[in-house]
């Protein structure tokens, strides 16, 4: 019934229902999955609206999906139903150079937007490591971050207006310039539980006139993280401040030959971009701080291609881990920046206690940690040890005054952990918003909110 109605409305080439096709949409980049009953590929907002109406009539949940790079099971159809893929809605609809903004469909790949506007001297700032494949719709759903969010902020700071299909299939629009409640901010980061974003006006920034990238090597992790804390304490705000430990540096060098010092215990990647006078001053100040904290070397990229090489290493770090471990799990927590040294020590301790190898590659300037926990999925002991280590890291981040997700989202994976940072009253306030936008719980159910057992007042009805 569901599949027939969808095929009638959108044409059979837009609907997939064979077991093999469905299996391809059962997972995102998280380890757990669920089988949908149908996968649909709309080509327009009107199609999205028709799909929601049909799914609703059939009582089937709807999970919107971009490129499936999410790490928390946010795009996984846990409760079955319809997966709505934005693969065919991938057009840049309008570029308004003068007012530095662009209107895009949700399926446009993040990096594609920056490529398209580069000739106008503009770029789109949020740059998650997945940006070569992840979609802007998915980025909006998770309020995605990336290395440059240190200076430019996360996705929510760059969304100007949204076109949304609601839980009844109705289309409406929001804008940050509209009077009234900031529905745009409420929708960004809501992981597809409040509405399905079909297109967005995004803010673009002018390409900086000057960019400097450098790597500093340290003999131990502690000194590197102390240096980061000192940079923040001095009130210096680089455009990116990334850290990699020895495990990651070696994996990256083996895979990309990015030019990192392989003998180092930790490497800081520092970028300053903007007006040339400011860039030179910030770069020099950071170098001084790094050296004062025991940096064993400081190397500044001399050319654009050297800069690109250093960044390619950083952005490919998680992928390079695949060369040294059959599987890895990426944890994502954020702690106050002055607590970085303690947090890294706690990560190390938790991993060691559980017999797990850990690699750290993360947004140090934001205090946003990404320990990569390496394991072999076929070994039950290792799987259990990774889960345990991940939980201990969450606990430690919360104990240090941090949070359970800095930029990846809650999704299916971390929903039970929400009670670690929020009280029942806090979660009930969020649930009031969901009640308004999706009273019948058809939009990406079983995500974000903890299940009933731990939090009765916000349990799915």
């Amino acid at each position, binding site marked *: 019934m569901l599949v027939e109605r969808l095929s009638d409305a959108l044409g059979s080439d837009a609907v997939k229902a064979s077991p093999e096709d469905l299996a391809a949409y059962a997972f995102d980049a998280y380890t757990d999955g669920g089988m949908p009953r149908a996968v649909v590929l709309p080509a327009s907002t009107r199609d999205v609206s028709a799909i929601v109406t049909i799914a609703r009539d059939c009582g089937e949940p709807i999970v919107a999906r971009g490129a499936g790079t999410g790490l928390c099971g946010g795009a996984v159809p846990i409760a079955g139903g319809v997966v709505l893929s934005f693969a065919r809605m991938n057009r840049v609809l309008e570029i308004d150079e*003068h*007012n530095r903004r662009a209107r895009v469909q949700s399926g446009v790949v993040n990096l594609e937007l920056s490529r398209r506007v580069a000739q106008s001297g503009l770029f789109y700032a949020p740059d998650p490591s997945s940006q070569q494949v992840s979609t802007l719709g998915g980025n909006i759903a998770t*309020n995605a971050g990336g290395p440059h969010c240190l200076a430019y*902020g*996360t996705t*929510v*700071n760059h969304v100007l207006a949204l076109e949304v299909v609601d839980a009844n299939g109705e289309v*409406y*629009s*929001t804008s*940050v310039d*509209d*009077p*009234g*409640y*900031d*529905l745009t*901010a*409420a929708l*960004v980061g*809501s992981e597809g539980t*409040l509405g399905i974003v079909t297109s967005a006006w995004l803010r673009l920034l002018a390409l900086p006139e000057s960019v400097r990238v450098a790597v500093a090597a340290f003999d131990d992790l502690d000194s590197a993280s102390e240096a980061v804390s000192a940079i*923040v*304490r001095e*009130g210096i*705000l680089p455009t990116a401040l990334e850290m990699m430990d020895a495990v990651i540096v070696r994996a990256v060098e083996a895979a990309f030959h990015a030019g990192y010092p392989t003998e180092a215990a930790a490497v800081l990647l520092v970028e300053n971009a903007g*007006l040339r*006078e*400011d860039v030179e001053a910030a770069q020099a100040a950071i170098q001084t701080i790094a050296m004062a904290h025991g940096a064993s070397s400081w190397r500044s990229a001399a050319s654009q291609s050297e800069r690109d090489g250093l960044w390619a290493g950083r952005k490919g770090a998680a992928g390079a881990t695949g060369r040294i471990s059959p599987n890895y799990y990426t944890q994502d927590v*954020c*702690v*106050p*920046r*002055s607590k970085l040294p303690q947090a890294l020590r706690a990560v190390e301790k938790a991993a060691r206690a559980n017999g797990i190898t850990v690699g750290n590659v993360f*947004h140090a300037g*934001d*205090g*946003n940690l990404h320990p990569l926990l390496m394991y072999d999925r076929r070994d039950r002991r290792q799987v259990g040890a990774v889960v345990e280590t991940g939980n201990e890291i969450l606990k430690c981040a919360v104990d240090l*005054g*941090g*949070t359970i*997700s*800095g*930029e990846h*989202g*809650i999704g299916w994976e971390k929903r039970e952990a*929400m009670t670690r*940072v*929020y*009280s029942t*009253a*806090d*979660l009930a*306030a*969020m649930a*009031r*918003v*969901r009640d*308004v936008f999706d009273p019948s719980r058809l939009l990406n159910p079983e995500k*974000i909110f903890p299940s009933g057992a731990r939090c009765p007042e916000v349990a799915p009805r």
Partner: protein
Amino acid sequence: MRAAQERLTPASTQALSEALARADAGGEKVHVVGGETLAGMGFPPERADLTLATTGLSGVTANERADSVIAARAGTPISDIAVLLATQKQFIPFDAPLPQYATLGGTLASGWLGPRRHCYGRVRDYLLGSTIVLADGTIARAGGMVVKNVAGYDMSRLYVGSFGTLGVLAQANFKTIPLPPKARLFLAPLPENTRERACSQLAALAIRPAAAFWIDGFHRTVDGDEGPEGRVLALLEGSDAVLERATLALRSALGRAGVPQTKVLDAGAREAFERVLDAYVACLGERSVTYRLYPQVQESPPIASLMQALARRFELRGETIVDVMNGDVVLRVSDLDSHAFGAKIEAFDDALHEAQPRAQVVASKHPHRAYLRVWGASPPAIERMRELKARFDPNRTLNPGCFVGGI
């Protein structure tokens, strides 16, 4: 409208929660206020049995210099936060008028947008977390004290600009950024034939001014000058080296537009900028209304000229501020006495909204304010906003009728 009978200034979040719970259960309507610097925004409450001022909830509760984050209670004056941060060479671009009276809670609840947002971003972009008290007294926290956080919905940003109709902010947490070491102000007369060219030259500068205005009127408020011509006022912020380069570029841009001598001010540059902010909400007794519009940058100079012409048609005095970098237009219309003004303002309001449906009122003490379209045309998602209000404040306890669409 009925005047509030009682005024409460709770000194703790707990006391605020108890006061709201009591009012909500007793069917009382609550008018929530901060420093009342933006009292001219929004509709007056339909009914107010109780005025609840957050000014008793004052003070910075956390100032983590090493993390560049700060938390303060809702009633804290904006200038207190700014002064403290300045001693640490940090800032948050609140750009609130009358910052010694404006409170943190009021600035957030009003969704105030400052002229420096084009370069530093909106205040909401600095918000990390909040504590809010809902109408029924529930205390709910959102976000936290870390600079990146995607755990659940972004409730804090939803409360920004909600005009106290979803709940009452008790505390807010922010990240801060380095304070630009220097500020320099440029002031020049702007004869009529140079205006549009000067605006487009300023907007196209490679080193963008932190703020730039074309001001027509507002003389006493802005610089005590009574000059008949319009003026341009531009604020540069940054290091010495940047200011040096930017100064040359700015001078030659204004020169190209045909602007005569430019006065440069280093001492008191930020104070002069703040006087422009104060002008946004300055009332001329009960005989003025100030509107604000948000067009795109290139549309704003012609819109400002049209607004002036419209004011003249109604024999009202029109004064304008064009925010050259963001495109905002501020229009203050006034008359010599309150009675004459009252006779014209409603017809003017109709004509203005005919031409610019999104014009909003930001300041007025005239009693007819209640009959003006103070929020402009309702946004497309108004019905969803009504539902949100109903879910958060089902008894319409908080600021009833004050917000968009009579929410």
